[in-house]
C-alpha cells in the first residue's frame, strides 16, 4: 500500500477542473455519495442507483483528465479488501430474503442461491461506488489539501498537528521501507524462503520492524527538536489561511447534493 503513495500523490499534483476544485467541496461530495449509497436498503434498486452514481463519478473522472488505466490499477489494488467477502455471499442464506432458490449445487452439498447471488451483486455495486469516489478524491486532491480541508471543516486541533506530521512522514517511511527491502535483498534474505527456519525468518522480520519503530521514534525526537527551534510550544497552532468558497463551487456542491437526493428519490419512488 505504502508503495503507491508517491504515485497517488503524483496524480494529485496534476491540474484539471477537478484537481482545482476546493478540497472541502470534493470531500463533502464524496462523503455524501458514499453515505447515500450505503444508506439505501439492500434491494435490487441499489444497482440502478449505483449505475447513476457511477456515471456521475465517470464524468468527474473524465474531467480530471486522468487515464482510466489509473482508475483500473487502483481499483485492482483495492478490490481484494472486499471482493472475497462479496464472493462468499453466494453460498449463504441471509436475513434480507425470506425464500432462497438454489441455482447450482457444488460438491459437499454446497448450494448457490439466486437470492444470495443477487445480494452479492448489491454489495458489489455499493462497494464499487464507494471505492470509486475514494479513488477520485485521493487521485485529485493532495494530502495536505485534504488535511487543510478537514481543518476548515472543524477537525479537532488535537488531531491537526499529529495528522499533518504523520502525512509528511509517510513519505519518509515509504522511502525507508524501500531501503529496508533493498538491504534485505542485498543480504539475499527472503522472508518467504522456505529453506530458512520459520523462527529465524520471523525473528529477522521482527528486528526489522523493531528497527523501523525505533527509527520512527528517533525521527520524531529530531522533529521535535527542530520544531522547538522554530518556536513550537504547548499553545502553538499551525496557521491556516482563510479561504472562502467561490460561488461556482457552492453552486456545484449544492447541485450535487440535489442530484443525489433526487436520484435516490426517483429510483426508490419509481414503481
Amino acid at each position, binding site marked *: *500500500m*505504502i508503495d503507491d503513495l508517491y504515485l497517488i500523490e503524483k496524480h494529485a499534483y496534476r491540474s484539471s477542473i477537478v484537481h482545482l476544485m476546493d478540497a472541502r467541496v470534493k470531500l463533502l461530495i464524496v462523503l455524501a455519495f*458514499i*453515505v447515500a*449509497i*450505503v*444508506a439505501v436498503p439492500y434491494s435490487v434498486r441499489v444497482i440502478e442507483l449505483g449505475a447513476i452514481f457511477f456515471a456521475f463519478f465517470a464524468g468527474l473522472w473524465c474531467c480530471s483528465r486522468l487515464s482510466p488505466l489509473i482508475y483500473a490499477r487502483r481499483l485492482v489494488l*483495492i478490490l481484494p*479488501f*472486499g471482493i472475497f*467477502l462479496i464472493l462468499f455471499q453466494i453460498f*449463504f442464506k441471509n*436475513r434480507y430474503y425470506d425464500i432462497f432458490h438454489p441455482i447450482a449445487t457444488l460438491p459437499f452439498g454446497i448450494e448457490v442461491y439466486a437470492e444470495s447471488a443477487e445480494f452479492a451483486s448489491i*454489495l458489489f455495486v*455499493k*462497494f464499487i461506488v*464507494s*471505492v470509486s469516489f*475514494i479513488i477520485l*478524491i*485521493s487521485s485529485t486532491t493532495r494530502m495536505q489539501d*485534504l488535511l487543510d480541508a478537514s481543518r476548515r471543516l472543524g477537525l479537532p486541533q*488535537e*488531531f491537526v*498537528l*499529529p*495528522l499533518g*506530521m*504523520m*502525512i509528511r*512522514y*509517510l513519505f*519518509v*517511511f*515509504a522511502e*525507508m*521501507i524501500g531501503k529496508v527491502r533493498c538491504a534485505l535483498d542485498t543480504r539475499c534474505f527472503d*522472508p*518467504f524462503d522456505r529453506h530458512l527456519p*520459520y523462527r529465524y*525468518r*520471523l*525473528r529477522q522480520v*521482527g*528486528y*526489522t*520492524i*523493531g528497527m*523501523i*519503530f*525505533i527509527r*520512527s*521514534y528517533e525521527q*520524531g*525526537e529530531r*522533529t521535535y527538536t527542530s*520544531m522547538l527551534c522554530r518556536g*513550537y*510550544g*504547548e499553545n502553538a497552532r499551525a496557521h491556516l489561511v482563510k479561504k472562502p468558497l467561490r460561488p461556482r463551487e457552492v453552486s456545484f456542491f449544492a447541485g450535487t447534493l440535489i442530484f443525489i437526493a433526487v436520484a435516490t428519490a426517483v429510483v426508490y419512488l419509481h414503481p
Partner: protein
Amino acid sequence: MHIPDAFIPIGQSVIYWIIALAFIILSLRWARKSMGEERVPLVAVLAAGVFAIQAMNVPIPWGTSGHMVGAALAAIVLGSPYAGVFVLTLVLLVQGVVFGDGGITTMGANIVNMGVVGGFVGYYGYAALQGIVRSPYAAAFAAGWASLFVSAILCAGELAVAGTFPLGFGLVSMGLYHAVIGVIEGGITAVALYLISSARPDILEHPQVVSG
C-alpha cells in the same frame, strides 16, 4: 480485518462511530494530559511508522502472508491503551480516505476493532500476563496474539449482526485465520519490544516493567 463500506448498514455504522468517537475523545484527553507537547510529534511520527510496519508482509506457516496491526505494540511501548486508539485512529483515517483500505461509514467499527480492542487487549493483556508468565516478551507475544484474535472475533460478530456474513462461518474462518496470523502480531510485538528495550530502553514508558 478492515471492513469496507456497504458491509454494515448505516444505522449500525452510526452506533460504531459513536463508540469509536467516545474512545477517540478519551484518547485525545489522554494525549493532552499524559503526552505533553514533546510527545505529540513523537506519536505522530510513530503513527507513520506503524503505517509503514503494516506494509511489511510477513509469511504465515501455511504459505500465505499477513501483516501486523501494531495497536498492542504502540499501547505497550507508550504505556497506555489510549495510545493504541490514538495511533490507530490516525492510521485508519489515512488508510480509509487515501487508500480505500477500510470504509468511511465503517471506519468507526474499524477503529473499535483495531484501535480500541487492539489497544486495550494488548495493553491490559500484557500487564496481566507479566505477573503470570514472568517474561515480558512471552507476555507481549500472548498480548499481541490476543489483541488480534479478539479484534477478529469482534469483526466477525459485527458482520453477523449486520447480516452480511453468517456468525458460525465468520467465527470459524476469521477465528482460525487470525489465530494463525496472530502469531505474527504476537511474535513481532515480542521481538520488537526486545529490540526496543535493548537498543532504546528510554523510549519505553515503563522500562522497568520490561527489564524486570
